[in-house]
Structures are given as structure tokens and as C-alpha cells.
């Protein structure tokens, strides 16, 4: 599994290693031993049909899944028992599926809400270079932005904090193709800048342009790992996993 990763990122350390991860919502057991790893500087996607457990996996990593068990090694530290606050402070930035823009905060307040957890975050100047739309909207109410702008804001606000590992849950969901492209370019730029990214994404044709590898989830497990270079030869397999 990791040989492909190692070939693209030889020698780079494993930033995130998930092993035998289980998670529950009350009585219902939704993750059944998820395993995957991500090396520093990689962009990795989690694919899978609705309800496969992608969001729950990200929630388990950041520490907000209600019940989880197994092993999550983050930056070389076991983190499965840590609170989300402690995980964030290890340098993990999280963009939830519903974006989580605060209605009672202005755009600027939303942007500046997450505290700096490490040095080396983007400056405001760099952020406005990536997201020029935000600069003119700083005093607007956060939720008055368009869907695309809210998504940009949700990503922008975790770039300031110095987090090195970004967990993005379906950033392109429900957005117009132009915006999706813009977000794609932005993710590629972030990769260039050295961020490590776990991206939940339905559209693998879109994600293959900048992602290194794709983990396919089904019924609470990772069932397949496909490097971007092998997407074309794996089409049948992918379709069978992703069709409803």
C-alpha cells in the first residue's frame, strides 16, 4: 500500500496513520476497522458512496466522532484518545462537510476565529491572494456569502493557523463547475506549498489532477487504494464501488 506513496514522496514521513479504526453513533457501529496512511506533503482522497463512512473517518481523526476506538497516529503521536482541542493543537485543520460558517460572526471574525496553533501559517496577504473574493467581503455576515465563498472562507480560516494537515470534507459539494475548478487549483497550490491534505470527494476525475492517491471506502472500511496514475485502468472497479 505505502509503496506507491513512497515512490511519489520518497523518504517523507507518515503524518497520519489510521489503523483498525472503529466508530459508533450510539448503538450503530459505522466504522469497521478503517486503515490508511498519509505521508507528509501528499494529497489523498477518501472516495465512497453516501454513508460509506468518509465524514465519520474525518470526525474520528479530528476527535469529534462520539465514540471511536483503534489507532490514529498523528505526527508520530497516538491521538485516538485526545480531545479535538488537543488534536487541533497538533496542527490539524478541519473543514466540516456543512462548512461551519458562523452566522453571528462577520467574514473577518470567521477568518480569525481559529487560533494559531503553530508558526508558519499563511499571512493575510497570502490568504487574500488565494481567495481574492474574501477581501472585499470582510465586514459581511459570514452566512451572507455565496456557497462557494463560504467554502473558500471555511478553508481560508484554517490556513492561518499553521496547521500542516488539512481535513477537507467535500469542499466542492453543491458548487458550480467554475467554483469547483477554482477550488481544485487552490488545493493544488496548497499542495505546492507543502500542506498535507485528506480530501473527501465524490468526483475522482476532478481530484486525480492534484491528488496522489485515492482510498475507496465502503460500508465503514477502506476497500481499495488507487494511485492517480492507475485511475484509468481502475474505472470498472471504481464505478462498482461508487455507484449507488
Amino acid at each position, binding site marked *: 500500500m505505502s509503496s506507491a506513496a513512497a515512490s511519489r514522496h520518497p523518504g517523507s514521513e507518515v503524518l497520519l496513520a489510521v489503523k483498525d479504526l472503529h466508530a459508533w453513533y450510539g448503538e450503530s457501529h459505522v466504522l469497521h476497522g478503517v486503515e490508511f496512511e498519509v505521508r507528509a506533503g501528499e494529497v489523498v482522497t477518501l472516495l465512497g458512496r453516501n454513508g460509506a463512512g468518509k465524514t465519520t473517518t474525518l470526525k474520528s481523526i479530528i476527535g469529534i466522532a462520539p465514540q471511536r476506538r483503534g489507532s490514529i497516529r498523528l505526527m508520530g503521536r497516538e491521538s485516538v484518545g485526545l480531545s479535538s482541542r488537543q488534536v487541533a493543537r497538533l496542527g490539524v485543520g478541519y473543514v466540516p462537510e456543512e462548512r461551519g460558517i458562523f*452566522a*453571528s460572526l462577520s467574514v473577518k471574525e470567521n477568518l480569525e476565529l481559529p487560533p494559531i496553533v503553530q508558526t508558519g501559517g499563511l499571512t493575510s496577504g497570502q490568504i487574500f491572494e488565494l481567495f481574492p473574493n474574501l477581501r472585499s467581503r470582510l465586514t459581511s455576515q459570514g452566512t451572507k456569502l455565496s456557497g462557494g465563498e463560504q467554502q473558500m472562507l471555511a478553508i481560508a480560516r*484554517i490556513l492561518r*493557523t499553521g496547521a500542516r494537515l488539512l481535513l477537507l470534507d467535500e469542499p466542492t459539494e453543491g458548487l458550480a463547475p467554475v467554483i469547483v475548478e477554482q477550488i481544485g487549483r487552490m488545493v493544488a497550490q496548497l499542495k505546492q506549498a507543502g500542506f498535507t491534505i485528506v480530501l473527501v470527494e465524490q468526483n475522482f476525475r476532478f481530484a486525480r489532477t492534484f491528488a496522489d492517491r485515492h482510498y475507496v471506502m465502503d460500508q465503514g472500511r477502506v476497500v481499495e487504494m488507487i494511485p492517480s496514475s492507475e485511475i484509468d485502468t481502475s474505472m470498472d472497479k471504481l464505478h462498482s464501488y461508487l455507484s449507488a
Partner: protein
Amino acid sequence: MFELLGISPYGLFGQLLIGLINGSFYALLSLGLAVIFGLLNIINFTHGAQYMMGAFAAWMLLNYLGIGYWWALLIAPLVVAVIGVIIERLLLARLYHLDHLYGLLLTFGVGLVITGLFRNYYGSAGLPYPTPGGLTGGSDLGFMFVPTYRVWVIGLSLVVCFGTWALVEKTKLGAYLRATTENPVLVGAFGINVPRLITLTYGFGVWLAALAGVLAAPMYSINPNMGIDLMIVVFAVVVIGGMGSILGSIVTGFGLGLIEGLTKVFYPEASSTVIFVVMAIVLLVRPAGLFGRSG
């Protein structure tokens, strides 16, 4: 004009002043409830007891330690707030994962216990507290008599109320508070210490209640039950203003104080019920309250 209405200007403006004074207390107390409710989702039924403790703390400082009003204004609310913080850490924090009803019952019970303890030691007869030097007396404006201490109370309440509003709406700490009110899980996932924020907020709400208690000490007799009747009205104010709204608490607090004062002039029979009549009407027309966000 006053002659036509058959009332004297002294009566009218006097009642308006009393209305503003009552309004100051309604505003300070409902503001504390609003701040606490916003973040904890708990209606703090200990609030009346904490108001009473503020007044008693000032009295104790004076009678046991010889510490006067001005220092008491600083020390007493802090001491009561610290006790509040201990209650939150020790008791309330254990209930956050349960239905909010448990928090409500707990604060209600703690309030009863505190009130009972004070009644046991100090009886129900009122204790006097002298008006602080420099704020005694008053001035006759020709159409009304204005006691200096009351002007001070109204002024300080306004400053504290709008200071609180600015703190919540205009500062970084306030942004944390507002965000946590909306989505505490996500705020925690950004690395912010949400439990500490909640503790601080509860402490601040209690501080407001105790501050109101110190302000009340020289005006009303200090007794263990002093918070009870007042809180019944304050809960009505909170319902009218809208649960958890900062500005709503302030405006509704002062506004209802004034309405109550005016009713005393024009229709004294209704003065003790007018707030509840307003509450009933507001509930019928706008169930979320005047400033509440419905849903």
C-alpha cells in the same frame, strides 16, 4: 398639562425614575441570564440567590471587615463569581451531556439551598446598608427630586450593560462566545478551550447578578428573600426580550421598568401585573420574544 391629567410632575417623574431604577436591575439581571443561557443553554435559577449573595457580601465586608462600599463594589461581585465558577465546575459541568432540564433543576436546587442557609444565619428581617458617602442626598430639579445614589445606579447599569454588549459583539472574546453559542463542537475542533469559555461565561453572568446585588444594598433592605420576587419579574423580562438576546435584555429591562413606572402613575391597580400582561401578549404575537431568533 399635568393639572389636566390630575397628576403632579413630581409624581410622574418620580415614578419614571423608580421605573428606570427597577429597569436597571431588570436589565442587569436578565443580561446575566441571557449571557449564561446563550452558552450553557441553561436558565440559571440560582441567579436570584447570587444577586442576594452580592448584597450580603457587601454587608459582610462592611460589618465584619470594615470594608466600605467602593471596595465592596469591586470585591463582592468577584467573590460571588468565584463561588459561581466553583458551582459550575463542580456541579453544572457534570450535567452538560444530559437534557437541559437537569441543569435547570440543579440551579433551582442550589438557589434554594443558598437562600435557606442565609435565612438560617441571618433570619428574614432586613439588614441595613448605609448609602456610600458622596452619593447621599439629592437635588431638586423643580419638577422632580433626584436622589444622587439612584442616578449613580442607573448610570453604572447603563455603562455595564452596554460594556457587556460591546464585549460580546465587538471583541475577539465575544466572537468566541458567539461562535460557541452556534457550534461548540466545531469551535473545540479549532483548538479553542470551550469548557473554559463556558466556565468564564457562567462566572461573568454571576458577576453581573452579584454586582446588581451590591448596587441594591443601600436602597433596599438586605434579606435572604430579596432575589425571589425580583427574579419572577426578571424571568418575565427574559421571556419578553427573547431568550439569550443581549441587546434584547437591556432594552426590554429598561423598557419594562419604565412601563411599570408609568402604570403606577396612570393605573396603579395594574402596576404589579402589567409586565405579565405584556409577557402574555408578546408570547401570543411573537413566541420567540421581541429580540429572539425563532427556531
